[in-house]
């Protein structure tokens, strides 16, 4: 091995290390310069900057490489190793040209060079400096990327078509862009549109950038309905305006006030409340199995945007029977899994909830979406029933009746408890929550009132009027009721309240005293409900107590017979039956009320026919509420287009296409055939 080869072996790692340090050190600067160039001047310039940077980097690397030659290695060896005795340079000289002493020294150095590793000659990695360099570059890149106000990423203004012709010299819209920024909770990205019509999510921020030529003095966006959105001129000579959309709007771009420009449509897509589906259990009413300890419940909620990650589970444990029912409520937070569609699963510990035989557990899930004012949806209740111990011994009928859901409504006593509880919690509750709970109790009160109202035939509250029974008898005068019959006669009560022609069992019979009491109770319940629904449980309580007292009296006083439910056939006149007598029986006219012609729709359709009308009939039809137009805003825009250009056949065609689906289809009528004229008649008569 010659000395040169030996030395080259020492030089190589060190040279590699030096080039690596140079490249790693300069690279951040090149990258940062490229990113800045891209943000400032776009891709082309950035590519050029990168190319130049990389070329300079290459040149620098080459230079570093050439600096780390043999001479450098000899100097470095002299510097690093004492055993070189400052004679490493001798290794580079031709041995033949050296003196004998020098030759001896060279041999010694060469022998010593065999010991030690070449890596010793390398510089250390300048970790700290490299880290600082990369960190600074990363910061610069981040700043460049996030630099605000840069409009480069957005599309240029779109060219305008169909904005009509302006008078020569009058300002005209020549460029447009619509930026839609949906509210954050939707998770939708902002987007730039080239058209001025759009469907946007509710409460989106909508910004226009418009360009006019020549520059108008005060262009505006005039919203259909009188509102005006002012436009502000920006530095580039474009006009900007923005609005937060709470409803769908039709608007015109008016460079000069009073211009009849075409209507544009911003249609608001309302946020839908979440939809909840109960997966487990499949049936709303579940009877607990013997020895059941836990109850698993799974719901699935979906929303057009996102479902809130947590839902509220309302648990109600109902124990007892009749008026002795005790109700306990609990609220739980349930976390859901998934994104757009979330599953809420919960496993309830029955013993922990205090469930005992003969009690029910009602679970309702309230799911919200992610809006700032969330839309809450209550899932259908799932009921777990723990049958009472003696419940099974009731025979075959029980299997049918026990599984039917009873109508759940609260007793008067329970309403009083609820109201008192609410009053106790008043300090802790926000006023809105207080009002909501008071209103909920009011609803319960109403249900109870209606329930008792049924015993009175529900006539006091304008209940459904029973239609006349379809009998073939000639109608007697006003059912022949004795007006204001004497109190105390059971038959008169029926006549007064029942309006029934049927036999006694099918009617609700209440004796007059009970009836009077019930009416009082209903009156009290009315008052109680009134105050509860107005958020004044304190004023409702005395009324509720009074109602409870009266109901108790009713319970003690009498029995109430409930109406059987069955077909309501006209009574059979047994006196006449099977006798063949048909006195008084008349043929009935067909009880048909024809559906008339929809003259408004006909006039409206005729109005958008071939002749240029002013569409007044169409307006009337649309306003009448009978037209079931699917996209009213679109129709209004089309009407406006026809009015602006009465001669525009295409606009008329568009309007007809929009109105056609809403046109009613009458029951198929008859087209009359012709008789073929004189010849046809003669022909038909001749071929008989």
């Amino acid at each position, binding site marked *: 091995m010659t000395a040169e080869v030996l030395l080259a072996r020492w030089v190589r790692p060190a040279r590699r290390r030096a080039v690596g340090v140079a490249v790693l050190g300069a690279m951040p600067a090149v990258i940062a310069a490229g990113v800045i160039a891209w943000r400032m001047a776009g891709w082309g310039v950035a590519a050029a900057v990168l190319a130049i940077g990389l070329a300079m980097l290459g040149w620098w690397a080459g230079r570093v490489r050439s600096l780390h030659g043999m001479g450098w290695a000899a100097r470095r060896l002299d510097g690093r190793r004492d055993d070189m005795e400052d004679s490493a340079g001798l290794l580079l000289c031709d041995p033949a040209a050296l003196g004998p002493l020098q030759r001896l020294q060279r041999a010694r150095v060469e022998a010593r060079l065999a010991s030690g590793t070449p890596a010793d000659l390398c510089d250390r990695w300048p970790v700290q400096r490299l880290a600082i360099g990369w960190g600074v570059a990363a910061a610069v890149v981040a700043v460049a990327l996030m630099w605000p106000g840069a409009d480069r990423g957005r599309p240029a203004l779109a060219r305008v078509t169909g904005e009509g012709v302006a008078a020569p010299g009058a300002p005209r819209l020549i460029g447009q862009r619509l930026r839609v920024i949906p509210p954050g909770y939707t998770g939708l990205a902002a987007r730039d549109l080239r058209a001025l019509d759009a469907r946007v999510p509710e409460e989106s921020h909508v910004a226009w950038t418009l360009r006019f030529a020549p520059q108008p003095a005060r262009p505006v966006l005039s919203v259909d309905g009188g509102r005006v959105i002012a436009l502000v001129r920006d530095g580039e000579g474009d006009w900007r305006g923005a609005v937060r959309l709470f409803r769908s709007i039709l608007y015109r771009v008016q460079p000069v006030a009073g211009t009849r420009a075409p209507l544009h449509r911003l249609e608001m897509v309302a946020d839908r409340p979440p939809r909840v589906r109960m997966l487990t259990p499949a049936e709303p009413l579940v009877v607990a199995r013997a020895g059941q300890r836990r109850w698993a419940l799974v719901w699935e909620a979906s929303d057009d945007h996102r479902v809130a990650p947590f839902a509220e589970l309302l648990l109600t444990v109902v124990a007892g029977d009749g008026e002795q029912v005790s109700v306990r409520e609990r609220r739980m937070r349930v976390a859901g899994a998934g994104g757009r569609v979330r599953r809420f699963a919960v496993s309830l510990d029955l013993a922990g909830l205090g469930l005992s035989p003969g009690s029910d557990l009602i679970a309702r899930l309230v799911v919200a979406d992610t809006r700032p004012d969330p839309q809450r949806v209550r899932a259908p209740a799932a009921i777990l029933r723990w049958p009472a111990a003696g419940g099974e011994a009731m025979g075959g009928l029980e299997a049918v009746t026990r599984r039917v859901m009873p109508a759940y409504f609260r007793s008067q006593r329970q309403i009083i408890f609820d109201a008192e509880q609410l009053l106790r919690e008043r300090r802790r509750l926000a006023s809105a929550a207080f009002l909501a709970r008071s209103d909920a109790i009011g609803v319960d009160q109403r249900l109870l009132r209606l329930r008792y109202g049924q015993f009175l035939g529900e006539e006091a509250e304008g209940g459904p009027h029973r239609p006349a029974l379809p009998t073939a008898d000639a109608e007697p005068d006003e059912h022949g009721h004795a007006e204001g019959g004497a109190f105390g006669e059971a038959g008169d009560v029926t006549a007064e309240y029942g309006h029934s022609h049927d036999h006694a069992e099918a009617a609700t019979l209440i004796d007059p005293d009970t009836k009077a009491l019930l009416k009082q109770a209903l009156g009290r319940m009315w008052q109680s409900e009134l105050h509860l629904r107005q958020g004044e449980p304190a004023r409702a309580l005395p009324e509720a107590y009074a109602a409870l007292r009266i109901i108790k009296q009713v319970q003690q006083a009498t029995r109430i017979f409930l109406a059987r439910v069955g077909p309501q056939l006209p009574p059979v006149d047994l006196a006449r039956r099977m006798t063949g007598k048909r006195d008084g029986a008349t043929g009935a006219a*067909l009880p048909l009320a024809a559906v008339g012609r929809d003259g408004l729709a006909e006039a409206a359709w005729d109005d958008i026919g071939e002749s240029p009308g002013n569409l007044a009939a169409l307006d009337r039809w649309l306003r009448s509420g009978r037209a079931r137009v699917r996209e009213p805003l679109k129709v209004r825009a089309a009407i406006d287009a026809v009015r602006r250009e009465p001669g525009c056949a295409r606009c008329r065609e568009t309007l007809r296409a929009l109105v056609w689906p809403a046109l009613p289809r009458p029951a*198929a*009528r008859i087209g009359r055939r*012709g008789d073929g004229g004189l010849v046809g008649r003669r022909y*038909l*008569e001749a071929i008989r």
Partner: protein
Amino acid sequence: MIGWVLLGAVVVASGRLVWRQRRAPWAGWRLAALLVLQAMTAGLLWCVLEPPRSLRGGATLVVMTARARGGGGGGVRVALAEADAPAAVEAAPDLATALRRHPETRRLLVLGEGLAARDRAAAETLPVVVGQVPPLRGLVRVVPPPQVAPGAGFVVAGAVAGVDGATVELVDPAGVSVDRAVPGAEGDFRVTGAARVAGTALFKLRVRDRRGRVAEQAAVPVWTVTGVPPQLLLIGSPGPEAKYLARWASDAGLDLRADLALGGGLAIGGAVPVSDATLGRADVAIVDERRWAAMGAGGRAALVAAVRAGLGLVLRIDGPVGAETRRQWRALGWRIVGEGSGAPVRLTRYHAVRAGPGTRDAPTNLSAPDRALPVPTRWAVRDGGGDSVPLIRDAGGAALVRWRALGRGRVALWTVADSWLLVLAGEGARHAEWWSDTVAAVARPRVEARATLPAIARAGQRMTMCGIAPGARVAGPGGAVRLLIDPATPGCAGYWPVTAGWHRLLPGGQPFFVQPEGALAGVAAAERREATGALAARPLTAAPGSRADAPGPVWPWFLGWLASAALLWWLERGRRVMDGRL
């Protein structure tokens, strides 16, 4: 006349020569030559005065019409205005001009799609031969519906040619395809739609090829008009069928007289006496088999007599038909086969859009899952005489309703046993359509003063209108035009629409649609082809060559006459010289 004069002259001159021969005999050959020459001169003079048609007899004129290619052999070749022939071919604006230019024409050879209407009159007197015919492509026949009643269904029939794997769609004015049909082997198709309120509407026929691309699209004008509602006698027994029939009839605005017998002289709606007076006022009577049997011979005779006078009769079957009734209906041409109803009526689903938006109480839910179609049943009935017209068919092709003419009226047989199922299954529109079609087909005819217009009118093409009053005008997109009635054809006038679109005939406001100029090119080509074929196939009553309006050239005859007269003069002169010498 001239011929007789000349003949007389020849006879007199010949007699004079013979008489002269007796006095001063000539050489025999000279006399013979003089006699022949005299006759010949007279004949040539006649030809000068009344020149025969042509020297070159039987020339064929090759006429190139639209899409004509070469071929057709020799003969004079002209290209009419619509042909895109090479420039070398002589161009003529129309056939009459070409014939004036070529008076020697004895026969026409037509190449291409055929002669347009303006040229057919010129070709009347000549034999026509059809040469190369280009194949048709796209819609070749379209029968738009005549006026439609509000809410009623309508049929657009037609034919497609030259489109591989074609399907035809009917598109409603909102752009929704409401029906689709695959043309049969002959290219015939039939699509159905439904009208809505009175007024005009433009549907579209869209032909798609195998790959679903639109091959052709054409406007189908639909004019919906409310006519005078007929008076309907509903004579039968109570039941769901009668109930829903009455429901439809009153909704459709018919003047309904119901007589649904409950037995014992009681009837829902009140008894309607089957008398000449009642039947004479009514337009349609719907009678079921029980009431038919209970009507008595007199009632039945009155009913049949009323039908012969124009009443429409719909026979309905509610239960088993008795032997006597079968025999009587057999006489009317209907044969009831077997007992009981059982054959299912197969239905196809209509596009949900067809039912319209519904009402506020019962809106049509377009996004609702499809309901199951009901399966009504029908009675097996055979057409006894084989001359009835099937009116409504189910998806399997079985005729549900047939009618036949009886005198001036019509009798229909409704074979569906339980069409009310349709109403209960949400197919009320179809129930109404069926009954509307049936009643409309048989109801007493009613002459309404309407003008007769061509089924398809085109911009830039003359159309004839008949049945119009003096002083009528046409109002269109281009303004109003007064129509001039041709005294030769009373009540008829010609109109030349310039712009496409809806036009109205005033007074009265009867609308008609004018198709744009290039629309329905295949239909126009088929029409031309058919008319030219008819020209070629017609027996030619007048002998070819009888055209008096194209005399041949005179000058050859004149020269011949001059030569023969000169020879005659020379021969006669020679004799005179000889006489002088003697």
